[in-house]
């Protein structure tokens, strides 16, 4: 791989031991994946934040890096933590878990990382532009930034994203290259998509079928960013889709080569079967919305449905701290809490220890959550739209 003089100096240790190791990691990964050079990144999003995911080994690694003086060079955000970083006690997160989670957050902060923990950094102040090179980790955020924004990122692991942040660079390969962003399968959608959950079901089905291909969708008449977020998240969870295009809706759809593609048809039958397959439970103990993290529009929708209601069983909605602030100011938080729900910030159901909080069956409207909850959190799942979920808890 070609390295500039300045980059050679990093490998010689001019930037200190931490940066040297981190840069060596980027160079080696670049060589493994056939990169020709390094490219500067505009922003980073680092995964491996929850204590539940990285445990003591990861915590100690991060503390060690911070104590060696490692500092990030570009705007860097974090993936969700394992708990709400402010209201963890009130919601009932275990104390020893909280202590370790706060150690992790401190280490990140000492490295200059913005301790906003979210899978939707683009809704919380880390917004890349079209064609900007970035190094993000979380699979749904990678999908959204590549597909809906048209920024360029591979799906980074925790350490390689941290390395990109500390060195301000990433190896030039994969989805950073225009020729690697071309679709290789066409998805013809012939079904009405009403709820965000419908987009999640479609995403789950397509991800399972296409695995790590780049789909080009036709037949999706309209979709807002919440719905595209839901679609991309589910495809990245059930498959490994890091980029998709939607005719007339996403920025690269007009630009890519889409002739002579193999075609997959998706209709009502496929969607119904997906709902059926993902429903493993009967009656939810808890409903958790906001996977990926809810936008203000989604929080406002929930508040509208819970106004003057009294829930029999809890409903959570997960979001970033930034959206939570706006929800507080708009009175949405008050409405949701009055009804017996919670707005949970900084974390999400998949990385928080909900199985230790006494819940066995979780209701969700997210294809991604329905994919992960049985394995990661030992949950039975009720997967349906928001109206039916609230009905179940009322």
């Amino acid at each position, binding site marked *: 791989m070609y390295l500039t003089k300045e980059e050679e100096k990093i490998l010689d240790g001019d930037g200190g031991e931490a940066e040297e*190791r*981190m840069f*060596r*990691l980027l160079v*080696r*990964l670049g060589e*493994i994946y056939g990169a020709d050079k390094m490219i500067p990144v505009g922003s980073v999003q680092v995964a*491996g934040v929850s204590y539940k*995911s*990285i*445990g*003591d*080994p*990861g915590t*100690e*690694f991060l503390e*060690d890096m911070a104590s060696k003086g490692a500092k990030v060079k570009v705007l860097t955000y974090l993936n969700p933590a394992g708990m709400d970083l402010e209201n963890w006690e009130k919601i009932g997160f275990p104390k020893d878990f909280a202590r370790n989670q706060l150690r992790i957050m401190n280490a990140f902060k000492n490295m200059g990382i913005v301790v906003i923990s979210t899978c939707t950094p683009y809704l919380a102040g880390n917004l890349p532009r079209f064609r900007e090179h970035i190094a993000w980790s979380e699979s749904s955020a990678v999908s959204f930034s590549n597909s809906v924004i048209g920024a360029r990122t591979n799906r980074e*692991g*925790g*350490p*390689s994203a941290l390395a990109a942040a500390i060195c301000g660079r990433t190896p030039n390969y994969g989805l950073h290259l225009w020729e690697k962003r071309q679709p290789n399968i066409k998805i013809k959608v012939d079904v009405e998509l009403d709820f965000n959950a419908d987009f999640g079901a479609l995403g789950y089905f397509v991800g399972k079928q296409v695995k790590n291909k780049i789909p080009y969708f036709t037949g999706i008449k309209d979709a807002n960013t919440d719905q595209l977020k839901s679609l991309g998240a589910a495809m990245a969870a059930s498959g490994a889709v890091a980029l998709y295009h939607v005719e007339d809706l996403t920025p690269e759809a007009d630009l890519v080569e889409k002739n002579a593609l193999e075609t997959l048809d998706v209709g009502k039958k496929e969607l119904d079967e997906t709902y059926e397959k993902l429903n493993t439970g009967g009656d939810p103990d808890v409903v958790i919305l906001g996977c990926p993290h809810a936008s203000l529009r989604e929080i406002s929708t929930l508040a509208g449905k819970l106004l003057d209601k009294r829930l029999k069983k809890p409903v959570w909605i997960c979001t970033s701290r930034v959206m939570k602030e706006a929800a507080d100011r708009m009175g949405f938080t008050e409405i949701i809490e009055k009804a017996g729900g919670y707005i949970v910030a900084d974390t999400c159901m998949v990385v928080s220890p909900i199985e230790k909080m006494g819940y066995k069956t979780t209701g969700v409207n997210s294809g991604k959550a329905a994919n992960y909850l049985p394995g990661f959190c030992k949950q039975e799942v009720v997967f349906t739209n928001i109206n039916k979920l609230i009905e179940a808890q009322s």
Partner: protein
Amino acid sequence: MKGRMISPGKTEGAAIVTNEPIGFYGGIDIKTGVVIEKGHPLEGRCIKDKILVFPCGKGSTVGSYVIYGLKKNDVAPSGIINKETETIVATGVILAGIPCVDQIEIEKIKDGDTVLLDADQALVTIQK
């Protein structure tokens, strides 16, 4: 044997060899360096200061941090030789500073052989 340098450095020591992949997270005790994965051919053996020879990594990506932790706790292997180093092991050895070479015919190395690992030159020499 000539392979590919993953992480630089030079070391010599007794080889501990397995043909099974290793999952470091949950597979190796970070405090002692003892293999704890049930049913693994190396179960119960300590990898400290040995040259660890295995085909590739497997399992959780947290394994990278375990490799780093082994080094910090002074119970890491002195070197690693792989058939194909994937990103979990590559990330771990580079961050920890453990010499590592891959693309080696590991079948030629027998458990207990004294091995010279010169990762800077990507060379592996079996001395006995």
